[in-house]
């Protein structure tokens, strides 16, 4: 057995053992052993991905047991980055989950949670290895269902059930699209190996249909606009370590699937494919961050940011596809590498942020930012970790978000090489909107960190907050280190990812060799950036400034006093800026996009209208395009459901008759068709 085979088996065994231990053990040991199983399985997944990238070898296995016929697995370059991010986020969130899920003891089933968590990691690990449509679809459905059950963990909350139902509905719309897509792609035989599919190119009209179906199916999973509605509902209600996995890894499977089908199996297509992906990406990036800004539920805010970042990833992929269609191969490679890099980075910082939000939730029992504040003094380590995550997602140098966003910018700048001017003119608009969403993300995370962790506690719950237990800190620490590490080493990560793409055999890359020198020169020779030097420079300057102060003999005395408030007697938390107030200027600026509803009612004194008894002001923001898109659909479903209600009679005999009729019809059909 090869090394990779051993690793695959090891991972499967670990996950299954973890699931079993969680099911059989008592609350305490089941929880801890389940977490160990998941963590060690994830560590193996991580090393599997690394081995695959380092050796460049391909692992493949076809199972021929009677019960597993047609089940085929294969690991190649494209699977490897996804294995790595599954392993990284999986390991961190299982360690974290060991401490975090203790709070569920006696409230919700810990056994189910632990077992499902292991199963989710198992399906995720296998998903990226699937080597035929049947395996892919089976695992896809299994992953969706396990994730659904995990979202349902706190099943006594009505909001949770609602969110889980939305998730289930949309994920199945996506599944239906994928099913149709694979039928078209494999001409009806779902067990055809992907290798055969690569060799047989479908006709162009079919290709377009396949692309549209793939985009629909995978964007439903990835949470691309307009199929993102389930994401801000389902991610917040899941347990936080599960949210980290959902936002960090599960939605990335949409990205993986899209890359697998469109890049690998169909090896690119006409320019409008890329244009469509790019446009959807830009829209997701912008709307995701805009709605995140208005959100005061910490976890929902993070979920909307997932929509934004998936958008950024699709910008990279879309730009890459466009360049590929114009034959600009090195730029295309750059786009895909940037997208993959951002995928891994997003998994790290979003996982970290969800874990941090989980610690806050654990300590304060609320997700509402307006009831937090001052937590940096109560939970300094969580605050530091959240700060690292916030700086990374805001693409601040020298952390990892910056490295990948910089690459995406560089890719887009290459857009001037596109010979079609009408297309080329669309690129600057994408650049501008990407920059806007980057700036807004920074604003949003100043809000998220500032209102949550800084100033004075806004509620008794926040005052009584406590630092998270060690296991949770360790979970956050892993991802925090990953954020810094990935940020400092783009000169290493980029060539490695380039090699992952070079493994795709039918993509004829011109340049997949990226320079390994310290600065990161992009292949189109557009710009250079060196984040390790930048980080070193910043650190040196940070040291030099206090030194300079000491040299000039600056006064080093510090006196602690009250916050200046124009001489008022005392400061209360209510005098602080709230999250709502913080985002108000942007709400006004983008009023045309938000279309907030306003509701003002003033109670006058019965004697005179110059005496006001109470003023009530309410303003809400409902995503109007969701209403525009989903309301009619839901209406249609309701109407159809009303029409076909007569079928239901609640009488067993009738249902058996239906079955009989159905069976006969099938047999007749089978008899007719040769």
């Amino acid at each position: 057995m090869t090394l990779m085979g051993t690793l695959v088996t090891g991972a499967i065994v670990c996950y299954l053992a973890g699931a079993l231990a969680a099911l059989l053990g008592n609350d305490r040991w089941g929880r801890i052993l389940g977490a160990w199983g998941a963590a060690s399985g994830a560590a193996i997944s991580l090393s599997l991905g690394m081995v695959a990238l380092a050796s460049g070898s391909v692992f493949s296995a076809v199972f021929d047991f009677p019960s597993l016929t047609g089940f085929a697995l294969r690991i190649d370059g494209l699977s490897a980055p996804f294995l790595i991010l599954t392993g990284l986020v999986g390991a961190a969130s299982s360690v974290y989950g060991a401490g975090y899920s203790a709070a569920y003891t006696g409230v919700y089933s810990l056994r189910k949670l632990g077992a499902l968590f292991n199963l989710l990691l198992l399906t995720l690990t296998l998903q990226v290895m699937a080597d035929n449509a049947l395996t892919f679809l089976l695992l896809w459905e299994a992953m969706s269902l396990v994730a659904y059950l995990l979202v349902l963990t706190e099943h006594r909350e009505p909001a949770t059930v609602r969110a889980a139902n939305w998730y289930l509905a949309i994920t199945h719309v996506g599944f239906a699209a994928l099913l149709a897509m694979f039928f078209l792609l494999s001409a009806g035989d779902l067990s055809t190996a992907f290798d055969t599919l690569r060799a047989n190119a479908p006709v162009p009209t079919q290709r377009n249909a396949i692309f549209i179906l793939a985009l629909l199916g995978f964007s439903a999973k990835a949470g691309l606009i307009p199929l993102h509605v389930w994401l801000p509902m389902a991610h917040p209600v899941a347990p936080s370590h599960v949210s980290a996995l959902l936002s960090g890894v599960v939605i990335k499977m949409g990205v993986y699937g899209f890359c697998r089908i469109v890049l690998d199996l169909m090896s690119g297509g006409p320019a409008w494919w890329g244009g469509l992906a790019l446009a959807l990406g830009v829209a997701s990036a912008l709307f995701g961050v805009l709605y995140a800004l208005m959100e005061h539920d910490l976890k929902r805010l993070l979920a909307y940011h997932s929509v934004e970042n998936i958008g950024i990833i699709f910008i990279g992929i879309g730009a890459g596809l466009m360049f590929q269609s114009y034959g600009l191969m090195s730029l295309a490679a750059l786009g895909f590498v940037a997208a993959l890099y951002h995928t891994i980075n997003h998994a790290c910082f979003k996982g970290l942020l969800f874990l941090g939000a989980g610690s806050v939730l654990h300590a304060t029992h609320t997700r509402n930012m307006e009831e937090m504040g001052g937590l940096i003094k109560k939970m300094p380590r969580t605050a530091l970790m959240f700060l690292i995550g916030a700086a990374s997602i805001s693409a601040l140098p020298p952390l990892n978000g910056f490295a990948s966003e910089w690459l995406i910018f560089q890719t887009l700048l290459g857009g001037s090489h596109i010979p079609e001017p009408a297309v080329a003119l669309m690129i600057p608009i994408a650049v501008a909107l990407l920059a806007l969403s980057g700036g807004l993300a920074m604003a949003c995370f100043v809000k998220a960190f500032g209102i949550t962790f800084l100033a004075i506690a806004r509620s008794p719950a926040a005052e009584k907050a406590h630092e998270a237990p060690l296991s949770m800190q360790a979970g956050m620490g892993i991802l925090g280190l990953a954020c810094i590490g990935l940020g400092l080493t783009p000169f290493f990560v980029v060539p490695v990812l380039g090699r992952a793409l070079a493994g795709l055999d039918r993509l004829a890359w011109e340049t997949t060799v990226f320079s390994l020198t310290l600065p990161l020169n992009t292949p189109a020779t557009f710009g250079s950036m060196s984040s390790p030097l930048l980080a070193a420079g910043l650190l040196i300057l940070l040291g030099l400034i206090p030194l300079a102060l000491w040299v000039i003999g600056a006064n080093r005395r510090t006196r602690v006093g009250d916050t200046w408030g124009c001489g008022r007697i005392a400061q209360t938390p209510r005098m602080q800026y709230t999250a709502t107030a913080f985002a108000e200027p942007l709400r006004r600026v983008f009023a045309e996009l938000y279309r907030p509803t306003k509701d003002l009612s003033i109670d006058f004194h019965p004697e005179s209208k110059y005496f006001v008894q109470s003023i009530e002001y309410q303003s809400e923001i409902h995503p109007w395009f969701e209403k525009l898109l989903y309301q009619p659909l839901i209406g249609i479903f309701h109407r159809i459901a009303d029409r076909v209600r007569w079928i239901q009679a609640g009488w067993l005999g009738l249902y058996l008759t239906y079955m009989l009729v159905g069976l006969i019809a099938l047999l007749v059909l089978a008899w007719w068709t040769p």
Partner: protein
Amino acid sequence: MSAWFVEIFQVVFVVALAPGLVGLIRWIKARLQSRLGAPPGQPYRELGKLFHKEAVVSKNASWIFRFAPYAVSASTLAIAFLVPVLVVPRRLDMVGDLFVVVYLLLLGTFWLALAGLDPGSAFGGMGSSREVTVAALAEPTTATAIFSLALGAGSTNLGAIVAAALNDPWTVLTPGHLLAFAALFIVAIAETGRLPVDNPSTHLELTMIHEAMILEYSGRYLALLEWAAWLKLFVFLSLLANLFFPWGIATTLTPGALSWAIVTLLVKLALLAVVIAVMETRVAKLRLFRVPELLTASFVLALLAITSSFLLR
């Protein structure tokens, strides 16, 4: 060796002259208001005084508040290292391009905005909220203007852009170039908190943007933040001057070329200082909610800049 010496010298030069530039703008403005005004060296005295005063820190503030001045000044200093002020080509060009500069600015804004929220004062929150709004809305213009500059030079590296403009001095007059200059000038005004976006000499908390965030700072912290803000203005103006009108910048390391570069840079900056002072005398501060309109206008300018560079390429 001498190349590295010049790099260091450039930063020292920028850091040393930054307060003087602000003093000069204030002095010209005072003259335009029929006043004698403080001498241009006044900001140096202010810094000297602030460094020797004690610091008062709010009891609600955390380490973020104390760390932010260092973070802000370090990121601004890093920008001073990256921007070509006197010489091209540069050794440090590979460390960061124009995007790095823009995101380092955002890094400073990020820390300053957090520091504004930290003491829990309403003013600080207001300042942070407005600062991040303006910073976020200025981003599209900046990115688009960078795009149009990069189109001309084939690179986002600052040294390459300046070198390209030096090679072909007539590109300076192309509309793409001029429009991008106008767009970036508006961004520079918004980012450095000058009129009509923010009034640097206001004392009314409700109209402040930048000042509101540093209302809580005193002593050495305040000195660092003020210096960083002045440095930002200096770097922004010399960036504008050198990217769009690179005449005079040294291409060799001879003392003659360097001193000529210093002279031309000072002349360019003095001209820009006069422009800013005259403009600040002429225009009133915009209402906060007209600022986005101004930034939109700058974005449209940048977009036009790109379209015309595309066409003339």
